[in-house]
């Protein structure tokens, strides 16, 4: 197990948003976490990245308890996130944004290789390298957010709703690239409301409902689970 959450609880003030969730990600997997608005998906991702403190439970990464580790050091350990809403740095150029992804790294040759890889995955970013990131389209910004996270060369890539606000064709394209990233050897935990795409791409998946994991299984199992189909795939 590369990443494991054990009974993780997170509260905003006195309101608990995660009531003790446990999940794990094995090396090489794509794991999806699906759930409706407000289920706690983003909260889970923020807890993993260290932006929200835990009020209970543990996060184990690569055999180390990182529950109390500072957010920036989690990046050094090999966790990097493309957050919800992309959150690119609009005033920086595309290239500077990508360089931000490599902020903790010093291996120049490795960074150059990863930049080439990101440009390979997202040729559009190469064309726009010198452009202010704030002027990119929504889809391009999502590509930039994923590319930026890849520049950290993470052991586990965390993606929070990569499909948010994108047209269906673009969503398919983004998920194809996510599969490709996985095949190149990066482990992925992806949060999604678009259950169709997420479940068909994921090896395994968890269903989150109001701060609790209510179901888990292979992507394929959940894709054919009647309850999941009704709740998340709009099929009666």
């Amino acid at each position, binding site marked *: 197990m590369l990443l494991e959450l054990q009974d993780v609880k997170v509260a905003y003030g006195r309101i608990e948003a995660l009531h003790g969730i446990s999940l794990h990600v094995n090396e090489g997997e794509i794991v999806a976490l699906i759930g409706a608005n407000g289920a706690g998906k983003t909260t889970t991702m923020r807890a993993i990245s260290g932006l929200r403190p835990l009020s209970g439970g543990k996060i184990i990464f690569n055999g180390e308890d990182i529950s109390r580790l500072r957010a920036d*050091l989690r*990046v050094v350990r090999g966790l*990097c996130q493309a*957050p919800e809403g992309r959150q690119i740095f609009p*005033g920086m150029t595309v290239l*500077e944004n990508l360089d931000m992804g490599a*902020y903790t790294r010093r291996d120049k040759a490795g960074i150059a290789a990863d930049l080439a890889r990101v440009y390979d995955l997202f040729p559009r970013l190469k064309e726009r390298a010198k452009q*202010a990131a704030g002027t990119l389209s929504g889809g391009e910004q999502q590509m930039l957010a994923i590319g930026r996270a890849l520049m950290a060369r993470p052991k586990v890539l965390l993606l929070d709703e990569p499909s948010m606000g994108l047209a269906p064709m673009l969503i398919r394209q983004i998920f194809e690239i996510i599969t490709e990233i996985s095949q190149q050897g990066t482990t992925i935990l992806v949060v999604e409301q678009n259950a169709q795409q997420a479940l068909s791409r994921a090896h395994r998946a968890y269903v989150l409902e109001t701060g609790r994991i209510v179901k888990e299984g292979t992507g394929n199992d959940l894709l054919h689970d009647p309850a999941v189909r009704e709740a998340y795939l709009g099929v009666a």
Partner: protein
Amino acid sequence: MNTLIDHIGQYTVDGVSKGAIYALVALGYTLVYGVLRLINFAHSEVFMVGTFAILVTYTVLDVQQYPALVVAIPTALLGLVVAGLASGGIALAVERAAYLPLRRKNAPPLIFLITAIGVSMILVEVFGLLLPRRIGHLLPEVFGRERAASLSVPYLFERRPVLTIGDTTIDTIHVIVVVAAVVMMIGLDLFINRTRYGRGVRAVAQDPQTAALMGVNQDRVIMLIFVLGGVMAGAAALLWTIRIGNTQSAIGFVVGLKAFTAAVLGGIGNLRGALLGGILLGVVEVYAAAITASIWEDVFAFVILVIVLMFRPTGLLGESLGRARA
């Protein structure tokens, strides 16, 4: 009015060299505001401490008025180092001792503001009262008198004409002050815009959470900007002593207020805005002093500020440490 028009060139040159010092001090306000949205009112005393560091050093070394150039130049460089260390150090100390504990406790902005004003007062009194009483006998030239006593700092360079166009004379002091200030500012601009650490500063200024997700240690960035702002104030302190030749424990109040005004005028949070605001303020003050009695010059600075903010609430260049480049 006529004297102003007849000698507009001279007044402009004087104003620019005055404003260059404001601009250097303004950078400290702008850096801290850009990253923390905090107006560090203690920054005026960071400047004051720089002038005292120079005065102490020159007194200990027994530096004389107008030394030969071979002595003056290394002495000035030594002054720069000493003031940079003292101002950078005190700025960092204030951040660690006063602001960090408040950040840890998630204190509201008003508490930071009051703390800043409190720290500013403490520093003024330490240099105006405490040190004179405790160690005044050790260095009577610096701490011999209490409070608001004007202390002269030996002039290192003589005012000699360098270039005369019509009746406008650019002298050695103008050149030294403006060139040194511009070099410091270009250095800072390159650091912020071209280096990895500078990119980290801009990232935290734009979006601290996402910066953390990229592995930026926010705490280190905060320490860095306090030190950078302090070093710039230290350089300003050196140029102040070169141009004005004196200091006092209360010096920070007026200089700091002007520099803060300059920062707001140019767009607080914007490095290039600090330069523009500083120069503009210096020039306006000198013009105003020429037209009216010079006791009114301070008023003019604030009149200009109010007018600019009425039309451009974010200052002339807008607020954008994060967006410094694109």
